[in-house]
């Protein structure tokens, strides 16, 4: 096993241990507390909060993937080419809008809770996936596309059997970026009462408890690194399978 994989394994096991048996870490986190503050977050189960955090990110990313890939497919077809600039600017607006502002605007419409957070993360996740899908679908080897047409594949057959499979590693890279951004951004959702790891961090900030802040931050950080690594490995294996090298 390489050093990199060893470190990943240790990080994963430590994370699981912290989530399953948080009290075992009270000694270590206790060093950061003052005046007899609790060392481990005590207003909810860390595992439940983490699963809820991951669930919100997963749903938002899934939605963003479906819409962004769908849009990119439409604007790369002959009939949708004229919508390319429009859809690009739409996705760009999603990215330039600060997530806090989306939350603030969404709360009056959707109320407090998970919904406004999902909307913010969804909008935030669109652009990287859209851009990468466009890159993947427009950068296909011309000879391959030509061969697919010349052999009599219909538009759908070319898309499903040739274009999407070859573009998949690039699309996956977009999803990876989107997931990592969402994992971090989801913490803000706690300001509008979504159940994410942000509530651990916020509780720590409010009570001046560094141990809470660190717990929340560490869990989010390690999750992001592990998921990023896992998706990168998947991309590499897909690229290797098709004999492509990372561009």
């Amino acid at each position, binding site marked *: 096993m390489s050093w990199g994989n060893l470190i990943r394994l240790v990080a994963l096991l430590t994370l699981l241990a912290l989530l399953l048996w948080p009290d075992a870490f009270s000694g270590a986190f206790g060093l950061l507390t003052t005046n007899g503050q609790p060392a481990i977050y005590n207003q909810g189960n860390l595992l439940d909060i983490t699963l809820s955090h991951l669930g919100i990110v997963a749903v938002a990313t899934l939605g963003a993937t479906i819409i962004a890939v769908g849009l990119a497919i439409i604007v790369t077809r002959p009939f949708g080419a004229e919508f390319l600039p429009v859809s690009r600017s739409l996705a760009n607006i999603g990215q330039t809008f600060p997530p806090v502002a989306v939350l603030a605007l969404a709360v009056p419409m959707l109320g407090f809770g998970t919904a406004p957070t999902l909307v913010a993360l969804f909008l935030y996740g669109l652009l990287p996936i859209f851009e990468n899908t466009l890159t993947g679908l427009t950068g296909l*080897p011309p*000879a*391959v596309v*030509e*061969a*697919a*047409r*010349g*052999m*009599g*594949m*219909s538009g759908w*057959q070319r898309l499903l*059997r*040739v274009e999407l*499979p*070859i573009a998949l590693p690039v699309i996956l890279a977009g999803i990876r970026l989107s997931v990592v951004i969402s994992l971090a951004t989801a913490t803000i959702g706690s300001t509008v009462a979504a159940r994410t790891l942000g509530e651990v961090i916020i509780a720590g900030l409010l009570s001046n408890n560094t141990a809470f802040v660190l717990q929340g931050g560490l869990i989010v950080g390690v999750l992001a690194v592990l998921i990023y690594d896992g998706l990168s490995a998947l991309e590499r294996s897909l690229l290797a*399978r*098709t*004999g*492509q090298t990372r561009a």
Partner: protein
Amino acid sequence: MIEIDDVSRLYDGRAVVDQVTLTIQPRTVCVIVGTSGSGKTTLLRMINKLVNPSSGSLRIDGEDIAGIPAYELRRRIGYAIQGHGLFPHRTVAQNIATVPGLLGWDRAKTRARVDELLELFQLDPASFRDRLPHQLSGGEQQRVGVARALAAKPNILLMDEPYGALDPVIRAKAQADLLSIQRKLGTTIVLVTHDMEEAIHLGDTIAVMAHGKLLQSAPPAEIIARPANDFIADLVGSSERPFRLLSLSRVGDHIEPGTASGAPIATTASLRDAYAELLWSARTALPVTRDGEIVGQVTLAALARLAARPQ
């Protein structure tokens, strides 16, 4: 039979293919030669409707292709291109099985056909079937590309500079293989190239194009002996003419009685090879062998006569 009848293709008012009329006989190889921008590729791509003509009509075995849906027509016509265009995420067998898959062949029939083609192209099915394109050499990729084009037993095979990316040694082998496969299967081949040498070697008919116009369409010997204009004469190359003429005939067709000495030459060799051997070994005649037996000789004097401009 492919009949191209007064076909033009305009882009922005400019004719890329300009009123071309050309008939390609069944079971022959027609090579379209031209410089880049001559419209040769556009003309080829009109045969399988990758490009639609602005005017004129194309018929295959008497049937106007305007009335055939493009995808259906393309599944009936083999198509091999420069840079092979193999699907990088699919194995050799899956690549070859593309058109049979589109036509809904059953699994056993497809598999048998894939193995048959791999063997035809001298690729051992057991070791090549499950490889991915990037695990093959350039020559192997090219052969798989042609095998894929022939998978559904098309009567017509279109080839767009198929050997452009190959080095000279592998190209010569690929050309020889193509000719023997063409004779075996009787496929009508339309091949586009910028290389007159390749055209003379492969073509039963050579069609020369420039600026969208068809300048001359004739058998190679005719193109060499009587080029329609200076442009074609330049393409053939005046210093190359006699040797190209010799390259068209086989030693076996010009055997004279007599016994020469020294290393023999096979009946299947071209006269050009024989001529080179005569000059190189400083002899005036070579013994000719057929199946290992001396059947006569080929002489320098005869070759010199054959290399002269036909009257």
